[in-house]
């Protein structure tokens, strides 16, 4: 039997069927003698199994008609412009990864306080605002230019019929929105707005509320203020660092429009 030193490289070769058959036994013996390498091998195998499982369904899907047509010549000769944009989703993965991390940080901030009811909602809304409103490029997951999709998507996730309020009269334009965790299991929609000077406010809406109340809240030590309402079945907070009167004005308008949307 051939005798040689194995290395991590051989784990990949063994996994990919590239290890010569006559080395297989010696390799297995080496794995047994090196628990760390054995664990690594097992982990790679598990990841591969998961990857295969995640993609297995694709093979069973029927071939889409448009691909069949492309092959058998009934497709338009010129590719439609939108189609050459498939690669954008790859670029978007980078953005999503950043968004995920942001949510992680926001989550830690909001759950570690452990407040109750109203305060908890307000704290979560403020934590989200502090993190995302400060982001120039990654503030939102879906931009205002895709407003219809934004509203549908967030409505489906949050479980409320959401309409992004028009706050132009108060000087604010919609930037976009994102989905966030809320409470123990829930989800919240965050809508971000900006005025001509770049001042940002956010709306935080969730379907996680059994109580009815309203009020304003500022974290100990200052920072942005939240104006919130809890109604049966949903809760809303408007967060920003505006003069109280202006924030209250924005909040009233936003609340009225959200309410009209939810009950429409």
């Amino acid at each position, binding site marked *: 039997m051939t005798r040689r030193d194995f290395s991590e490289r051989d784990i990949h070769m063994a996994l*990919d069927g590239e290890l010569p058959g006559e080395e297989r036994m010696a390799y297995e013996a080496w794995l047994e003698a090196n628990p760390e390498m054995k664990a690594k091998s097992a982990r790679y195998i598990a990841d591969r199994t998961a*990857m295969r499982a995640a993609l297995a369904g694709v093979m069973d899907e029927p*071939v889409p008609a448009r*691909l069949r047509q492309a092959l058998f010549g009934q497709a338009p000769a010129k590719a439609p412009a939108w189609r050459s944009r498939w690669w954008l989703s790859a670029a978007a993965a980078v*953005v999503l990864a950043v968004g995920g991390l942001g*949510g992680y940080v926001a*989550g830690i901030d909001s*759950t570690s306080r452990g407040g109750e009811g109203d305060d908890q909602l307000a704290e979560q809304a403020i934590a989200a605002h502090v993190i995302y409103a400060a982001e120039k490029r990654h503030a939102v*997951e879906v931009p205002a230019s895709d407003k219809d999709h934004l509203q549908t998507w967030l409505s489906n996730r949050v479980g409320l019929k959401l309409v992004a309020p028009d706050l132009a009269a108060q000087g604010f334009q919609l930037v976009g929105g994102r989905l966030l965790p809320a409470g123990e299991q829930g989800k919240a929609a965050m809508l971000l707005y900006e005025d001509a000077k770049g001042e940002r406010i956010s709306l935080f809406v969730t379907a996680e509320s059994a109580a009815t109340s309203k009020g304003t809240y500022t974290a100990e030590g200052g920072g942005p203020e939240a104006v919130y309402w809890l109604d049966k079945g949903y809760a809303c907070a408007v967060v920003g660092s505006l003069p109280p009167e202006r924030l209250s004005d924005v909040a009233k308008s936003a609340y009225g429009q959200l309410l009209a949307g939810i009950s429409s």
Partner: protein
Amino acid sequence: MDDKKAAILSEIPRLRRYARSLLRDRDSADDLVQDCLERALVRLDNWQTGESPRRWLFTIMHHLFIDQMRKVNRRGEAAMLPLEAGEAQAAPADQVETIASREIMDALQAISPDRRAALVMVAIEGFSYAEAANILGVPAGTLMSRIARGREELRGLLDDSSRRRSIRIVEK
């Protein structure tokens, strides 16, 4: 001619799977496959009859993918504005994914395109190192290091996401 098309047709499920692993979003992946099929039809004469069209088609698709990735990189950050994030989010409602599937697909998208292609080509599509190196147009040593680094990167990302999940923070 029709024999060739029939042979190509039977490769579509694999091409779709590979595209899905590269791009995740179903429509985007099918767009890539469609681009690949259209280019293949123009170059039908380059394919020797009697040979499996698989490697030929994968090579075409890989070139399309890598060309676009390079363009994205050249455009730099402009292509990474949140505008595109919304498009990637718009997965069809019928795509039911388990948490495990979603995590692994997310992680796969987060590793570099070169490593992703190399890893998937071998681990999912079952090409040998020699075949994959040929399709990707890189030396075998480069392929192997991409696979090794890809697996390691994937593992790190999955560890991160399970850590996040364990404290129930991120909801997607």
